[in-house]
């Protein structure tokens, strides 16, 4: 860190040059140096809000009520202030670009966890990420041939009914296909029944029907077992 705690006790706190890791560390000084902690959070906020807002708005669009994406972005930033900074695991990489992306993945993972809990009408108390969630941050994304990806995206946007799309999206939020034992837990299914105002059997049917439509759109070859 370029700045000591004593140095930050100046009238004008300018943390623009600090790394995200350092800002998050300064935020943990909230008891001993609240002014510096607040200034560090404000710098972090301004740096990442546009990204978080974009991600949360895209996520909420067509799924939640108007304005929910902005609420989620605000709640995520406040959660970082309340509890998040202390749970952040410092980055081991020396590449500033990777570090920057990693912090944003951590932020949106918190937003995801808040969103899932809200859908289940629960308040997220702890925001510690699990080891699996941390490892997932640096894992390369699933490589999808562009023609398959284009067909799939078009089918998701046009071939599915609103309800099929909603069920598929909510189920996908709960179940990461890369996570072992990814089946929906019983209590999550009960929450979905309430949230979607339908039965679990019907949720399964809607999901199966939606996946069949998507499979038809991309063709059997694209969804054959990975080689």
């Amino acid at each position: 860190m370029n700045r000591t705690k004593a140095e930050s006790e100046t009238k004008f706190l300018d943390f623009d040059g600090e790394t995200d890791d350092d800002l998050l560390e300064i935020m943990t000084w909230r008891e001993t140096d609240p002014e510096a902690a607040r200034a560090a959070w404000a710098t972090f906020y301004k740096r990442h809000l546009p990204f978080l807002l974009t991600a949360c708005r895209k996520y909420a669009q067509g799924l939640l009520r108007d304005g929910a994406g902005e609420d989620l972005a605000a709640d995520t930033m406040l959660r970082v202030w309340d509890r998040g900074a202390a749970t952040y695991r410092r980055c081991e990489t020396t590449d500033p670009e990777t570090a920057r992306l990693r912090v944003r993945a951590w932020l949106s993972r918190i937003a995801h966890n808040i969103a899932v809990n809200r859908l289940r009408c629960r308040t997220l108390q702890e925001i510690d990420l699990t080891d699996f969630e941390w490892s997932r941050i640096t894992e390369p994304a699933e490589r999808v041939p562009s023609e398959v990806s284009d067909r799939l995206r078009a089918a998701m946007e046009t071939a599915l009914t609103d309800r099929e799309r909603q069920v598929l999206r909510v189920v996908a939020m709960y179940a990461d296909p890369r996570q072992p034992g990814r089946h929906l837990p019983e209590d999550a299914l009960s929450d979905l029944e309430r949230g979607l105002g339908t039965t679990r059997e019907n949720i399964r049917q809607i999901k199966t029907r939606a996946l069949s439509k998507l499979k038809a759109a991309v063709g059997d070859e694209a969804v054959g077992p990975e080689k």
Partner: protein
Amino acid sequence: MKREKESHGDCNERLEKLVSAAMHAIGWLLPQSVDEVRAIEEAMEADPPTIPQWLADPYELLKSNRRGEGADHRLGDVRDPGIEENLSRAARDGKQISPEVAEKMRKDREVAEGKASE
């Protein structure tokens, strides 16, 4: 037979992975990895977000003491057009929708959805 079932399971697994990746690419799922963050950043560059007034000043937000209270994270309404029609008709007639009628409409929708999946 067992082999066939396993192969079907593999296909479903592959399909769900593809669907998940496509959802991340569209932005329907919040990014959870550096690659997915990059995809959102590309979208952000193409269409920079407007920051609403109430989010513009971090200190004001912190002072507001807002902690998710009042935030509406319920799912948006996705209704069957037939149900919409019934609701509109009832509204036009100035009638209240009783819980029994609402329940019947819900069941009708499920039957319709069940038939569509057959």
